[in-house]
């Protein structure tokens, strides 16, 4: 468990730095990929809802600090996203091949609307039109990122090692 926490902390630190510095500066087709969200989806699917929520909170906190944005906005969104993806993994999707792709597509849309709503509630000027226009490209880019990121996360968090099956003898 401690190893997982350490690996998660490092993984999200790297993801936030790369996202803020490199990924967000490129907008092919008008949309920007969200490496942090994709990483969160992978981790939450592999490690469950509580771990996903905590990882989302931590990633959001780092992201808001890196972008000097309103502290708490990304934490709230990513915390909820991590929890939802974790629950999806625990209940239905974890072992299905399409689970990472489905969860990232859904959560990209939900987090975009959530961010729009939160920024609007904070009185910031938001352009729904601009957000919606960028959304298809963002979904596509996130889906493209999901494949290598999920593969890497599976190696890092080695599914099945969390609760290894033990032989139990009765009697």
């Amino acid at each position, binding site marked *: 468990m401690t190893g997982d926490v350490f690996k998660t902390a490092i993984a999200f630190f790297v993801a936030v730095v790369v996202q803020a510095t490199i990924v*967000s500066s490129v907008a092919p087709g008008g949309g920007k990929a969200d490496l942090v969200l994709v990483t969160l989806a992978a981790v939450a699917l592999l490690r469950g809802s509580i771990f996903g929520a905590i990882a989302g909170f931590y990633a959001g906190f780092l992201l808001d600090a890196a972008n000097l944005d309103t502290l708490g906005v990304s934490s709230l969104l990513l*915390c909820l996203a991590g929890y939802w993806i974790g629950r999806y993994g625990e209940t239905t999707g974890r072992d299905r091949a399409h689970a990472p792709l489905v969860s990232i597509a859904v959560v990209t849309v939900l987090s975009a609307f959530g961010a729009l709503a939160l*920024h609007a509630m904070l009185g910031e000027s938001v352009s729904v039109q601009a957000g919606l226009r960028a959304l298809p490209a963002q979904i596509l880019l996130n889906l493209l990122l999901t494949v290598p990121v999920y593969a890497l996360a599976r190696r890092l968090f080695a599914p099945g090692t969390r609760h290894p099956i033990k032989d139990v003898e009765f009697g």
Partner: protein
Amino acid sequence: MLVVVSIAMLTLYFREAQSGPMHSVQGAVAGVLHPFQVGAERVARPFRDAYGWTAGLVNARSENEELRKDLQLLRLQAIQNQTAARENVDLRRALRYVSGPSFPRDYDGIAASVTSHATGEWEQSLVISAGRRNGVRLDDPVVSSEGYLVGQVTKVTRTSSEVTLLTDSTSSVTALDVATDTVGVLEIGEGPDRPFELNRVPKEKVVERGDTISTAGRRFGRLGSLFPQGIPIGSVKHVGQTDIENFQQIQVDPFVDFSSLDTLVVLVPKENRTDTP
């Protein structure tokens, strides 16, 4: 629990001043991230430059022809400007004219690299690698490395600063048509392309397509401009008017490509600042 903590953080951050504890925490975390962001930016820059160079090759031929035409025109203008500038100096001396601060004469530049870009489409801001320790202050104007207006500083930590771009809908600047001295307010418009619009220009004023727009550095309404006079912004792309509107509809094509900003320059007045870092 974490949701409650997030909402509490958000509320505290939103309500407190820039010197409050949540801002200090953010500044401290940003300080930890800063060297890694600078490092990542340095690693990524050659790749970004290579991409830009390759993409530039596609339009190089047509762009070359356009630039040659522009060069001829600008040579002529440069000669005319030199004569006008000499005349201007003589007349100012004769009148003992005292002018307000203007760009670039009365400002020093603090060059900084862009270390963070906003993730969402609705956030038109970025973070640069210069902060309070470098002399950056709130509301300082920011220009591109070529000297074109980009935006202004809206948050400052010890090591980094947030720059809100002109493309943000909260940004506006008093701007003037250099050729005709017509003043208006430059803001980002609505619509699919989100063009820049020079608003509040009465119908009787003359603005023509191709005119250069720069900061006016003047008061427009009750508040004075934060931007010094003479920072180039863009050129007029379209001028139109309707019978029902009181003002002209003027669209401006910015000189800056806001999607590919690598290095920015924060303008600080040359006079000594009295506020402490």
